């Protein structure tokens, strides 16, 4: 097959399988609806009524805000701290036990603590999301910075490249493939922790909405919330992939040329 035809065929398969699954679910739930598995058409109906756009501002937006804020704070702190730790073996040795301990705590276990100390507002949720997202980025940044080729360090020294130039144009780009790997992992964690934190002591948010709907036996609404979370997760990953492809285009090129 010619490349163009092949690409179209591949795309068709990618679209056809999810479409088929939706069609089967649609037919199955329509033919024999039960209380917990309402007809898919009802779910879609509620989805349209709830999220486009009646509750978008009251529930979806606060969720996205918390997630974005928590994630951004985590990434910034993790890259800064990871750069410092990756550059100094002494610092690394000194902090390793603490880092290993903190990242081993199952995150939801921190929610009660966070409620007591920070309260039940947005700050608590942002804190939980940031705390969880911190570790993958931190550990990957440390690894990336620590693993920079010694030849590259020598090159920077020989040519007197130091300070900001060295950090922004040599050190961080060299570590960026690993930093991105960590950020990708953290993105999924951010979504999960957003939902979990909203299911405890909350008054709004998508997680809150799903739990609230279930408790008031509004099952189609509950499903619509789950559907929204799935779509959001998918879109976040897609957006991340597009950004990563652009930023790390050199990395893919360099790897392909060194392998080929």
């Amino acid at each position, binding site marked *: 097959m010619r490349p163009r035809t092949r690409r179209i065929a591949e795309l068709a398969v990618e679209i056809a399988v999810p479409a088929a699954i939706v069609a089967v679910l649609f037919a199955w739930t329509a033919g024999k609806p039960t209380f917990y598995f309402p007809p898919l058409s009802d779910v879609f109906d509620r989805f349209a009524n709830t999220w486009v756009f009646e509750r978008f501002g009251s529930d979806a937006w606060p969720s996205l805000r918390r997630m974005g804020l928590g994630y951004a704070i985590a990434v910034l702190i993790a890259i800064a701290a990871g750069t410092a730790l990756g550059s100094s073996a002494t610092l690394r040795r000194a902090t390793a036990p603490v880092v290993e301990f903190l990242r081993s705590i199952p995150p939801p276990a921190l929610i009660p603590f966070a409620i007591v100390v920070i309260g039940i507002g947005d700050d608590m949720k942002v804190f939980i999301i940031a705390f969880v997202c911190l570790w993958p980025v931190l550990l990957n940044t440390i690894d990336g910075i620590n693993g920079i080729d010694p030849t590259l360090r*020598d*090159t920077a020294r*020989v*040519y007197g*490249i130091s300070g900001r130039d060295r950090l922004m144009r*040599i050190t961080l780009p060299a570590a*960026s493939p690993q930093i991105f790997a960590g950020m990708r992992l953290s993105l999924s964690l951010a979504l999960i922790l957003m939902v979990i934190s909203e299911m405890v002591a909350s008054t709004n948010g998508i997680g809150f909405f799903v739990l609230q709907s279930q408790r008031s036996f509004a099952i189609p609404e509950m499903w619509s919330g789950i559907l929204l979370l799935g779509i959001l997760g998918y879109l976040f990953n897609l957006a991340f992939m597009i950004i990563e492809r652009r930023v790390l285009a050199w990395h893919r*090129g360099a790897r392909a040329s060194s392998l080929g």
Partner: protein
Amino acid sequence: MALLEINGLGKTYGEGDGATHAIGDVSFSLDEREFVCVVGPSGCGKTTLLKCMSGLLEPTRGDVLLRGERVEGPPEAMALVFQEYSRSLLPWMSVRGNVVMPLRHKKLEKAEAARLVEEAVDAVGLTEFIDRYPWQLSGGMQQRVAIARALAYQPEILLMDEPFASVDAQTRGDLEDLILEVRDRYDMTILFVTHDIDESVYLSDRIVVLSPSPTEVREILDVPLPAPRDQVETKELPEFAHLRAHVYRLIKRRREAAEST
């Protein structure tokens, strides 16, 4: 006064019984506009020597003097071309970005920096590839980028660490001629480390022959071959064969002596 002086330089890694004496005692000097090759058997601490000379490593004994001043860190008057071009170039920057990188902190006018970059890239014959990325180029071309980066930096002394060891023979010949050309164009002093005896004789005005580790200077010999050098004609000269054989014996005899003890 010599441009660069190496006085009783020694480097020992570790201490006590586990210590490795990489460099025993090395002394020689570089005059202005000289092309000196340092040649020695593999594993004789050539790279360590070069790192000490460039200020990347601190010698255990002795010192390196640049115009009489002790070298304590990489001086601005020196540039270094590494053997592993693919690891010393920045793959996230184009050829232009790589070459301009060391100029950024030199406080040059933008136009002046751009001119230096373009001139250096032209000198290595890569003008049409200036906006490509290093990984889009062949190995020999990547090493040319590394050379252009060193040229644009305008060092007085260019140190080269087996720069052509990982390119094929044909490319190697081209690069040897390129570096001779560039030396004249930029009026530089070059110290070239290699394990290839032919290469050392072909390129240099003087050769420093090293012993196996712990490294000492075996002999320093002049290379009175006429300039300009030519891959065919120069290598045809009886003096070339003679010098080549002489250096070869120096290195080989030392190796045998080392093996028999």
